[in-house]
């Protein structure tokens, strides 16, 4: 137990010490108290900003800590969502139906990630190839799912629905509790907190150190006796299961999923949340995901047609002036400047060099 606490307070994320953790506890309490003062609608909005955090955390793990960028997280988000819809929809008359759906969703995300990861990592492709491969995977999946409009595309009694998507997805029910409205908000808050704590322990533990070693220098890590491919695969599967958690929560939120949740536009979003926050800090990523989703909604829903222009401008500004991420920049301002400069003074490099 003490060891876990020590790992939790480890150095590989922003913030340590008593003051920090008291602040975090206060924040958690605030979120848990929020439904008492907020309307059901406001709570469902905040729940939406929160439920994307696990996917972003997974990508931060894979990219920030592991050095491998994946554009395909949304593919596993979608696989989990669709699998839940199929399994829970077919078994919704049973008490355990939706719970089975949740388990099946995460399993599906994990297994498909394992298969695809084996395909990718055991070929020892260069680091910059992985984003392209994963992007093609997301495109393949969304194109395929868009086809499935016909009646023959059904599993059990549930139609995949093509571009119209799968609608009427049943809400998760465990015991007598149906996770809708406020209950759903609590579910999301607890799940997100659990994911963050678990990941934070993981990155400070041995496995996390190995992952960071791989990020720094692949050859050296291999010479030290670690199977790099296996470690990368492990991280990839973990990140994808987290993306699956987000997907599972999303279909609870909206009871609906379409292939557009997996397309080209959506695929870039997690990368942007992570890049803007600062990819090598879990906390920064969690904060930036929440804030960017909120910003996006506030801008769009106020009828502001230049919402996308503003978001685009924000991205450019962040990348130009706070390239390591806004939150990370703020969090590490004092001591990072002393270290080696991030920017390369030379021109564009060969593939595999630079980031």
């Amino acid at each position, binding site marked *: 137990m003490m060891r876990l606490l020590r790992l939790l307070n480890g150095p590989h994320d922003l913030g340590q010490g008593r003051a920090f953790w008291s602040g975090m506890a206060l924040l958690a309490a605030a979120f848990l108290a929020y439904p008492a003062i907020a309307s059901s609608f406001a709570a469902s909005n905040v729940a939406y900003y929160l439920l994307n955090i696990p996917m972003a955390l997974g990508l931060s793990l894979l990219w920030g800590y592991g050095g491998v960028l994946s554009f395909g997280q949304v593919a596993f988000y979608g696989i989990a969502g669709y699998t839940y819809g199929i399994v829970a929809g077919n078994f919704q008359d049973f008490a355990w139906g939706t719970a089975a759906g949740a388990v099946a969703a995460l399993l599906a995300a994990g297994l498909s990630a394992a298969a695809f990861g084996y395909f*990718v990592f055991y070929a020892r*492709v260069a680091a910059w*190839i992985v984003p392209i*491969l994963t992007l093609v995977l997301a495109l393949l999946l969304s194109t395929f799912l868009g086809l499935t409009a016909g009646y023959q595309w059904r599993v059990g009694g549930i139609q995949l629905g093509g571009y119209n998507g799968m609608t009427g997805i049943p809400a998760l029910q465990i015991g007598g509790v149906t996770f809708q409205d406020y209950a759903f908000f609590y579910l999301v808050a607890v799940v997100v907190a659990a994911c963050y704590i678990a990941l934070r322990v993981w990155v400070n533990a041995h496995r996390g150190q190995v992952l960071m070693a791989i990020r720094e220098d692949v050859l050296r890590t291999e010479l030290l006796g670690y199977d790099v491919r296996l470690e990368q695969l492990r991280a990839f599967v973990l990140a994808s299961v987290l993306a699956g958690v987000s997907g599972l929560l999303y279909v609870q939120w909206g009871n609906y999923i379409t292939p557009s949740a997996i397309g*080209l536009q959506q695929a870039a979003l997690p*990368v942007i949340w992570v890049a803007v926050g600062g990819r090598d800090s879990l906390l920064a990523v969690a904060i930036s995901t929440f804030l960017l989703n909120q910003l996006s909604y506030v801008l769009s829903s106020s009828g502001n047609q230049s919402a996308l222009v503003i978001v685009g401008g924000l*991205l450019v500004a962040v990348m130009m002036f706070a390239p390591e991420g806004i939150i990370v920049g703020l969090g590490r301002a004092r001591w990072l400047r002393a270290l080696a400069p991030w*920017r390369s003074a030379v021109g*564009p*490099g060969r593939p595999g060099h630079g980031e």
Partner: protein
Amino acid sequence: MLPELTSVLYQFGTNAAFLLLSALGLIVILGMMNIINLAHGEFMMLGAYAASFAVHRGIPFPLAIIAAFFATGLFGIVLERLVIRRFYGRELGALVTTWGISLILAQGALLLFGPYMPPIPIPGGAVSVGVYSFSVYWLILIGICVVLVAGLTLVYRATPFGLQARATMQNPTIARSLGIRTGRIYMLTFGLGAGLAGLSGALLAPTTSIAPYMGQQFVAPAFITVVVGGGANVIAGAVGSSTFLSLIETPVSLALGTFYGTMALLVMALLIIRVLPAGISSLGARLRPAIAR
């Protein structure tokens, strides 16, 4: 028999030309400069918009295309000076930034010019072989592809600029120590890439509707073509990959429909990238010593 064969060849040619034209600007920017330019589709959109502007003010279409090339090229140079140059060596920073730029360009075009621009009528008529008829304009586009590829190769192999550019891409430090102004080379190369994207956009404009988000349809084919082509010889690689991918896509489309053709293309791209991570052009690099022996 002859009409069927002509039809198949025509479809193969148009599919390959579409892939190559989509990839044209990205060959320079991604293939040579290693900037993952997610705004590539929007550069093509800018070229199409420039061409539409020009054509509807009475400028003949061929001149409008040239105007689009220079307009987009100039825009590329300005963008490089202001933004892109901070991201050399940081490919993934470039990725996020260019995504932001693509949002600004597309949505900005929508806000400034409305949901669509007046279309450009397809020049040329049709030519018949048997029961099939083919669009003359696509035949011209196939020809233009060949000319553009030859021209680009010529620029990079036979001009002083080309030599300096290749040297800079290979080893910037030594190039600089030899007196090459690498900053200017980067600027001109990016401008060239942007201009070529604009040129493709203008060329493809008559075949498509000219709208703010029209660039989206070219992004995936462009990236796939360039990455499958590989970095050993970017131009030859892109030509090789567009030919090869079209060779897969065309028969599948014919037999099973356009949807399965697109799926086949994506699956084949996935396999090639996995099996030949350095792309098709790396095959050429391996063959050359074997042939020389």
